[in-house]
């Protein structure tokens, strides 16, 4: 769905994005991670033809961008760096105007599609108030509704949950997962690891303009080969598992063990009370920090 090769952007002497090769596949929920200023928004803008790349190629839905923008972009819903609308007009009028400005927005179905999109983002109760009178979260939802208006095949969202309350974040996450299940590919940028970890299937990490990591989330979160145990009987456990305990912190110990099931049986058999026991997985945070560190070393 999205494929870039050697994508590079210089702003004067600043290199915002360097040699990025994205590979987003149909059906993915792709999480695009990176610290502030790492180049996420610039990349998204290049994908959509807003910013012209210094060098490199972009393919969106199999077609070159920005050359095929007129054919491709009607199938793409986007939100870039926050929503925007005409403040003196109502949300509904804003959506209608935007829909009427470009190709692929059938007039006969417009009112229905606007209702659907507003419903999807939880703005169905919205009245005729001008957008000027909307709250931050309502504007964010309106921006999402605009992206969903033509039932796009690909959603490109730059920090879509900015400004939403926890309840709203949950709703939007659920909405994106539902849309994905119905066949929409989702590409979303964020610096919130937890958000990405909870819904993405594939992850790309940008560090100072370079793509330092791109893989399926489940590959990244593979088990480390250690088991984490929480127990009030730390001493007894340590005695039992002598030599395999790698780390200890209060009631928690980390044990090098291949088989957590056998480990649990052994502990219970020796009357060690176990509060929690689970194979340790690498967290996305570890993976990202590690990747960023390595790329830092390479420089």
């Amino acid at each position, binding site marked *: 769905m999205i494929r870039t090769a050697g994508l590079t952007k210089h702003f004067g002497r600043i290199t915002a994005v360097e040699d990025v090769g994205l590979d987003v596949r149909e059906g993915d929920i792709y999480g695009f991670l990176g610290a502030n200023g790492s180049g996420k928004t610039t990349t998204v*803008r290049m994908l959509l033809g*807003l910013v012209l790349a210094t060098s490199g190629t972009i393919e969106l839905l199999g077609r070159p961008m920005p050359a095929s923008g*007129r054919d491709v972009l009607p199938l793409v819903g*986007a939100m*870039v760096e926050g929503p925007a609308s*005409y403040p003196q007009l109502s949300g509904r009028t804003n959506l209608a105007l935007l829909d009427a*400005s470009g190709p692929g927005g059938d007039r006969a179905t417009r009112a229905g599609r606007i209702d659907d999109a507003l419903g999807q983002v939880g703005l169905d109760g919205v009245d005729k108030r001008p957008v000027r009178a909307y709250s931050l979260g309502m504007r964010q939802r309106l921006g999402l509704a605009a992206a969903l208006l033509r039932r796009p095949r690909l959603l490109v969202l730059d920090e879509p949950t900015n400004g939403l309350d926890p309840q709203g974040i949950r709703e939007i996450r659920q909405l994106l997962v539902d849309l994905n299940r119905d066949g929409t590919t989702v590409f979303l940028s964020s610096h919130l690891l937890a958000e990405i970890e909870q819904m993405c299937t594939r992850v790309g990490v940008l560090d100072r303009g370079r793509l330092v990591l791109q893989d399926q989330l489940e590959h990244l979160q593979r088990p480390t080969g250690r088991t984490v145990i929480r127990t009030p009987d730390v001493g007894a456990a340590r005695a039992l598992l002598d030599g395999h305990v790698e780390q200890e912190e209060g009631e928690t110990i980390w044990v090098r063990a291949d088989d957590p099931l056998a480990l649990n049986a052994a502990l219970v058999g020796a009357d060690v009370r176990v509060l929690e026991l689970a194979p340790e997985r690498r967290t996305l945070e570890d993976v990202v920090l590690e990747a960023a560190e390595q790329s830092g070393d390479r420089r």
Partner: protein
Amino acid sequence: MIAVELRKLVLSRRTWVTILLIDALPTLVGILLAVTDIGPRPGTGPAFLSAVLTDGTLFPLAALGIVLPLFLPIAVAVTAGEAIAGEAQQGTLRYLLVRPVGRTRLLVAKLVSVMVFVVLTVLVVAATAYVLGALLLGSESVSTGATSVSGTGLSTQEMVLRTLLALAYAMLCMLGVAAIALFLSTVVRAPLSAALGTMGVLVASTLLLTLDAAHVLQPYLPTRYWLAFVDLFRDPILWRDVERGVLLQAAYVVVFLGAAWANFMTKDVTD
């Protein structure tokens, strides 16, 4: 896209407030003339104003003569300066472009919308002035036809034709202003800067016209032939300045629209 731009124009309260403000000055002048009965001496003051005390039907022309040199260009500079920079500042430009609206198409739509604004303003001003003139001002020569600036009589038909010509000429001058403002609007970040920049150009041009040392520049200044529309009401019509004005404005339009297009096509939209 043009239809959408026009809807935005009509839906915007600013459009109507601006038109009302522009309309206020000639209305005030008309009322003052009617109440005091003191017109400017013939040959002084804005074009046609000296004649309206006797012939109120001329007041629409006089009203346009009042707004054309200053108010209308300012309004055009503000509206056209807003075109791209305003959308960019609001953040709506990026959503229009990914909708997608072609960049050329957007520029054309914006330009058309500005010109429709001009026509709308002119119509409102002319209509108010017509009503005002018919109600309050003199009605002596209604039957004998209007008088040309040269003092000879003009038939009503002739008068209508010349008025339309004058309006077309004024539109072209405003198109020149719009082209400059539109270009600046693709360059600067703030809409206000584009408007101020355009007004700066116009003020500088007007100033240089009064300066003898700027003699060599004067034929090329954008405001040089703005008032040549008065020549269309001489008998016979004095075409020389009008022709030069048309050529000059056409050159400004082509150069600045071309520059606006070239700049906007290759611009990174990062607002």
